[in-house]
């Protein structure tokens, strides 16, 4: 079997999960726990990093790694996705389990929610079956205190036989103690016997006799194979359980193909028939195992937890009764979305204009500077008219709406509203034979479709996960919002003045989003009936308690986050594209610039779907990033000649009108923006997540074909009816 340190443990995971113990002497610490208990918050406080957190289960779906120093040692900390158990029902659960089992962490911190400790203890008890090196972090103590739930941490530690630390991670309380405990646990891992003040033995669950006997048949042999790579008792239990995903991982990380071992197969048969004789079929076996774990958890909690009053979640229930009520649930949801848009549109207006005039002011200075230098005109053309001007447009049009929308959305997320959205919409998804958590992945898509695609990992069923990935693009990401907003304000809300203007804009934008949701449902349904046939799978959606967000912190952080994001994309994508546009506009073949030639080539088709050649080209050139579509349209219209100087947003409408834009063009641009191919990053993400070019192609073509069809129908109906 040739086990080397390279082919095992973190060696293999390194390539898989990108662990870099930056220093070999770093201690590797895993951060595990149920979903939404504050793992990422703990992670951020310890490492000073900014892993995204949010008040809904499933926020973190990948492993994130960070480092911190405590006393004289460096620690590498892995933020694992939240899981209820280690039975790996979904990809993220598998990631977490694999890391704990095969990543060889020096210690595992299990973060738990003090307000529902009992349920959280299942995972602790499961993990204790795999490893002793556990530090229990009872988080959310502030919330527990408010809800009058008291936890006796010492008693808990005595019961479990592991160190227990209480924290309130959001305010940083208890984290020093946590670091101390982790430090000790990681030390003890190396030299267990010399630790004088060793705690009592970590608690191991003892199952009913018939199950213990079945394990006993298998364990000695399994132990002989596994040596001390993994706890043989636990692996035996999982073998009897028939946990295929663990077997696969054993093969992947340790190169053990247990089931092809004839002796083992025979022993396994033996222990299964023992169970059979005792009247336990595989399901009853599983029930018994689960029931035993639950009874341990109940017993421990009865000693360590006192709940003073049972009415602690009455407030949450009251809010739920309004936010998810039959009459108000959906109107409130749409209303909230509209409100967020209204604030975005109103708030972005002024900064956009300021930014534009500021940035174009600089452009004038740049021009003067280049004239003074006496550089050839093309240098000025490429650098200022090409690169700089595109950058200026991207930043002034895109940055303000993004920097306002995102923090607002994050506030809703932290409040705990997103799972309620999923709850409200689930029935529609069920009717489309899709997964209810698809609503959550769509919400993530608002920020960035690539993030939405990764978020699809919370969906267990591969079929439904693919549906969610393919349709995620019908949610306009942050890069497409500003396009929609700009067009709506220019073409549809323009007739209104004062506050009515922004209200109408917000309402229209909301309508576009609702259309995106409807398209998602329709396409999901079609996919479920054709290439991704199947029935909806089962799932359980946890509705977390409402939490008051740390408003100031959220706003500062996410404005900062978005600004960096937009600026980063602007530099990486917009600048080169600006260069390309300028070149295309200034390289002539015969009398016509390349730009115009391309546009003319695309024009006949583009007109069929209500666009024109320049617009379609902008969408194509916008493949690397949607943010640059509008700037490309502006740049190419300007390069195509009719207007040479344009340095404010108010002139934009005139520019578009001079290129024969009508309301129909505007509608089709919006529709096409909502429904066309995913951006380059998203495509690559889909490829990575689906492991298949075929599905990537499907995810590319399906929204595109949908968009073309819808635009074609809209444009030609309007023309036939003589509306334009």
């Amino acid at each position, binding site marked *: 079997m040739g086990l080397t340190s390279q082919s095992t443990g973190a060696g293999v995971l390194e390539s898989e999960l990108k662990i870099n113990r930056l220093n070999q002497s770093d201690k590797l610490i895993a951060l595990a726990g149920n979903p939404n208990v504050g793992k990422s918050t703990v992670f951020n406080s310890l490492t000073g990093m900014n892993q995204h957190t949010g008040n809904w289960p499933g926020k973190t779906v990948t492993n994130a790694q960070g480092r911190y120093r405590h006393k004289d040692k460096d620690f590498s900390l892995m933020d694992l996705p939240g899981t209820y158990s280690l039975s790996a029902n979904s990809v993220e659960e598998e990631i977490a389990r694999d890391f704990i089992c095969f990543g060889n962490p020096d210690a595992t911190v299990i973060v738990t929610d003090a307000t529902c400790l009992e*349920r959280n203890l299942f995972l602790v008890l499961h993990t204790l079956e795999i490893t002793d090196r556990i530090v229990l972090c009872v988080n959310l103590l502030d919330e527990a205190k408010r809800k009058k739930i008291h936890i006796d941490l010492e008693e808990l530690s005595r019961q479990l036989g592991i160190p227990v630390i209480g924290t309130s991670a959001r305010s940083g309380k208890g984290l020093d103690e946590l670091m101390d405990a982790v430090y000790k646990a990681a030390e003890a891992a190396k030299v267990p016997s010399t630790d004088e003040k060793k705690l009592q033995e970590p608690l191991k669950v003892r199952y009913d006799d018939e199950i213990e006997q079945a394990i006993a048949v298998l364990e000695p042999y399994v132990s002989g194979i596994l040596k001390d790579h993994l706890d043989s008792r636990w692996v035996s239990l999982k073998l009897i359980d028939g946990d295929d995903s663990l077997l696969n991982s054993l093969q992947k990380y340790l190169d053990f193909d247990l089931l092809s071992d004839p002796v083992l197969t025979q022993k396994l048969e033996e222990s299964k028939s023992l169970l059979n004789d005792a009247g336990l079929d595989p*399901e009853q076996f*599983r029930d018994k195992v*689960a029931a035993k774990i639950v009874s341990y958890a109940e017993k421990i909690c009865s000693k360590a937890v006192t709940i003073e009053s049972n009415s602690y979640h009455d407030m949450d229930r009251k809010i739920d009764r309004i936010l998810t009520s039959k009459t108000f649930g959906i109107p409130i949801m749409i209303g909230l979305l509209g409100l967020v848009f209204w604030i975005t549109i109103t708030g972005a207006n002024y900064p956009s204009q300021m930014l534009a005039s500021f940035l174009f002011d600089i452009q004038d200075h740049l021009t003067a500077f280049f004239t003074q230098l006496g550089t050839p005109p093309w240098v000025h053309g490429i650098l200022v008219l090409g690169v700089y001007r595109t950058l200026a447009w991207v930043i002034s049009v895109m940055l303000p709406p993004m920097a306002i929308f995102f923090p607002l959305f994050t506030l809703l997320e932290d409040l705990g509203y997103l799972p309620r959205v999923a709850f*409200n919409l689930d029935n*529609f998804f069920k009717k489309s034979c899709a997964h209810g958590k698809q609503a959550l992945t769509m919400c993530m898509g608002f920020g960035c479709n690539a993030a939405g695609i990764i978020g699809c990992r919370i969906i267990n069923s591969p079929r439904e996960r693919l549906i969610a990935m393919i349709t995620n693009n019908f949610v306009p990401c942050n890069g497409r919002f500003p396009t929609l907003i700009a067009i709506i304000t220019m073409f549809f809300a323009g007739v209104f003045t004062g506050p009515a203007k922004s209200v109408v804009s917000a309402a229209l934008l909301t309508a576009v989003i609702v259309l995106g949701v409807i398209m998602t449902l329709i396409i999901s349904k079609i996919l479920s009936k054709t290439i991704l046939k199947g029935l909806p799978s089962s799932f*359980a*959606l946890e*509705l977390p308690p409402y939490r008051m967000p740390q408003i100031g912190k959220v706003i500062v952080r996410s404005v900062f986050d978005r600004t960096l994001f937009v600026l980063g994309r602007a530099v990486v994508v917009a600048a080169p594209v600006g260069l390309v546009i300028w070149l295309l506009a200034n390289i002539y073949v015969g009398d016509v610039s390349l730009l115009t030639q391309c546009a003319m080539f695309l024009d006949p088709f583009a007109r069929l779907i209500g666009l024109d050649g320049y617009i379609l080209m902008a969408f194509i050139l916008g493949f690397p990033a949607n943010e640059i579509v509008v700037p490309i349209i502006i740049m190419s219209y300007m390069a195509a000649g009719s207007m040479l100087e344009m340095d404010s947003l108010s002139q934009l409408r005139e520019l578009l009108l001079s290129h024969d834009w009508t309301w129909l063009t505007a509608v089709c641009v919006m529709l096409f923006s909502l429904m066309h191919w995913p951006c380059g990053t998203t495509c690559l993400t889909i490829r990575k997540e689906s492991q298949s070019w075929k599905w990537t192609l499907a995810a590319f073509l399906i929204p595109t074909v949908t968009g073309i069809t819808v635009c074609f129908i809209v444009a030609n109906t309007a023309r036939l009816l003589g509306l334009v």
Partner: protein
Amino acid sequence: MDQYIPLNDLPIGRKARVKLLSPGSESRRRLLDLGLVSDTEVEALQKSPSGDPTAYQIRGTVIALRSEDAADIIVEAI
């Protein structure tokens, strides 16, 4: 067994005790992970606007289940 009903038939606001999880159902493992073993107390809290799924209080947390999945959980109303 007539006082035993599938969980999706439990009226809103009522409590019940889990008796068994239907064999062979796809959701079993996940339900067990949430601690839905025999004798666990559940309370039907609230239906979603369109009538499905329903939110249940289970071991101090709120979990929404679709009616198909809830139907696999046989309970005794209390």
